[in-house]
């Protein structure tokens, strides 16, 4: 009786001899505000499943790590395996100050920004000292060294157990409200990061970012102060990542380096970036959501999910539009966009 017909650009609905059609106008469905509205309304649908709310909160946080990471990789023109270092630094700083110094979350936020900035500035010379892949490998080694330290100085960092009992960011009368608030906070954090990074990429210094990512020697010859920009592009995203650590501390209220510092965690972030697509900044969001949802739904398979999950990801990466991931499905490439490509530089 009622007949749906899916055409390339429209859906036809036939009812007896009446016909209505709904045009799928790319201009509308591509509009990001729809997506953002959807994300804001999402709790309405999942309210009764706090675990799903937590899952997407976590997905937001993963995206909030992936977005600055993309900026960092482009601006320093190197693949970076180690943003977890700052996640760990931010987390431990917030947790320790909160536990032993009694600092409030607001105060620890300030401390996290300062500590991450200082450490990142101290480490940033490596962005121009170490060549090519070696920089990536230094970033790989640093979090592992930090992880070792959390065991060696167990009195402070409490090794595998981690720190617990930090004060919560919010104390609303009902825990479920709390979780809802955390969801919105994480969403805002993620969108804020997206906005900031997007702004940077589209600004004057964004042009320099592209030049550095393409060929830093030539950029230098064109008068770009490459070293200074690299420091900026290393330090600023590091601080953003540190703030995510702070957020984790005050929402989960436990923080253990073993969870966040090993390479496995980083690989998850890299996968998110990859599934999301090469237009990293925006792709990170659908990437984070997809990876989280796939992982969660695979858990119903029982213990086999452990090797099915990587297989599913492999299939996803292979079959999504080459190099552009989910974002490539969502939006056709426009010629004037600068689509950065990660170069693994060997020189």
């Amino acid at each position, binding site marked *: 009786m009622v007949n749906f017909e899916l055409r390339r650009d429209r859906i036809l609905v036939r009812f007896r001899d009446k016909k209505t059609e709904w045009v799928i106008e790319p201009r509308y469905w591509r509009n990001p505000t729809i997506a953002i509205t959807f994300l804001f309304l999402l709790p309405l649908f999942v309210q009764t499943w706090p675990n799903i709310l937590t899952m997407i909160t976590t997905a937001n946080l993963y995206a909030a790590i992936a977005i600055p990471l993309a900026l960092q990789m482009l601006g320093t023109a190197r*693949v970076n395996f180690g943003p977890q270092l700052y996640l760990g630094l931010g987390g431990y700083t917030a947790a320790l100050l909160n536990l032993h110094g009694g600092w409030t979350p607001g105060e620890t936020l300030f401390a996290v920004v300062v500590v991450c900035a200082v450490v990142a500035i101290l480490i940033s010379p*490596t962005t121009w*000292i*170490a*060549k*090519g*892949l*070696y920089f990536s*490998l*230094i970033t*790989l*080694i*640093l979090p*592992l*060294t930090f992880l*070792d330290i959390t065991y*060696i100085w167990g009195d402070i960092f409490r090794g595998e157990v981690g720190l617990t009992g930090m004060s919560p960011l919010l104390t609303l009368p009902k825990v479920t409200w709390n979780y809802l608030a955390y969801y919105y906070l994480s969403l805002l954090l993620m969108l804020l990061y997206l906005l900031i990074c997007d702004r940077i990429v589209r600004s004057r210094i964004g042009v320099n970012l592209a030049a550095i990512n393409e060929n830093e020697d030539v950029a230098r010859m064109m008068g770009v102060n490459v070293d200074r920009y690299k420091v900026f592009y290393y330090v600023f995203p590091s601080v953003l990542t540190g703030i995510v650590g702070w957020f984790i501390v005050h929402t989960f209220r436990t923080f253990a380096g073993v969870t966040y510092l090993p*390479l496995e965690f980083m*690989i998850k972030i*890299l*996968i998110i*970036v*990859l599934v999301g697509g090469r237009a990293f900044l925006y792709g990170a969001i659908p990437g984070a959501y997809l990876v989280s949802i796939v992982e969660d739904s695979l858990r119903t398979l029982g*213990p*086999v999910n*452990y*090797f099915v999950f*990587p*297989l599913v*990801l*492999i299939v996803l*990466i*292979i079959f999504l539009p*080459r*190099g552009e991931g989910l974002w490539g499905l969502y939006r056709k490439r426009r010629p004037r966009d600068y689509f950065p490509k*990660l*170069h*693994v530089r*060997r020189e």
Partner: protein
Amino acid sequence: MSEILLKILIFTVIWGSIYLLISLGFSLICGVLRIFHLGYGVTFVLAAYGLWALMEDAKLGLGLSILLMIVVQIAFALIVFYKGVFERYLEEEEVLLTLTVLISLAVAHLANYLYPVTAGVSIPTTIIDDVVSIGYITISWQMILAALVGIVVTAIYCLWFLHTRIGLIIRALSQGLTAAMLMGVNVRRMYYLAMVLSILPPTICMLMIAPFWSVDPFMGAPLLMTAMLISILGGLGNLKGSIVASYLVGFIHAAVSFIFVSRFMGLAALIVTLIVMIWRRGGIFAGETLW
């Protein structure tokens, strides 16, 4: 004092050679295909669990199992890694890195699913199950043997690369693909060969070290880390560098654990690597070429 020096010396040589055997294949792939093979750890897992499956489940003898396992290894390396990933994504390195990691994760979890720790997987001591005393210390023959094998395999590889036609071709290939093709090199066959060459050392290594190392489904990651550390320290994909770096790491481990505490040997190696990389930006031999 001299006792400690002797200990350090002996363990530098033994551990260095073992680390060399662990990292040789990784350096080779890095040098020839110019990629970072993050799925390298799979070779160890496949070697151990493949052998176990053939011996315990298919009830084949040791020799036959080893042979068959090597065949499986080669097939896996060529079909899954080479055909499936390297050939298709050589230009998109971020995809390549992630795919190799995912494959190794899948293999490790599959091994864990089929043979969890409770299955008690191990590889038998193949040659001599005895110990020997040198000066004040006692070492198992197996360790000495592993070290010797490490030295011999490396020597064979190096000599082969330096003095044979195919070795020359592979070295040239690592520097210029089009030029090599114009010289009449069958590139694909050479890449196959390089893949095969790179899985032999870790396979031999697993057979040699299993009697004093552990066999578990997730051992690929720490072994890959060791291989990577050594490659980085020596200069990516440079065999000379790998040799020097292996013994350097062996020395650091031995010195730290005999003079100081063994708890810090891993950390010390990490820190030395960091320092070396800041001091010499491309590792010890700034590896741009296989040799």
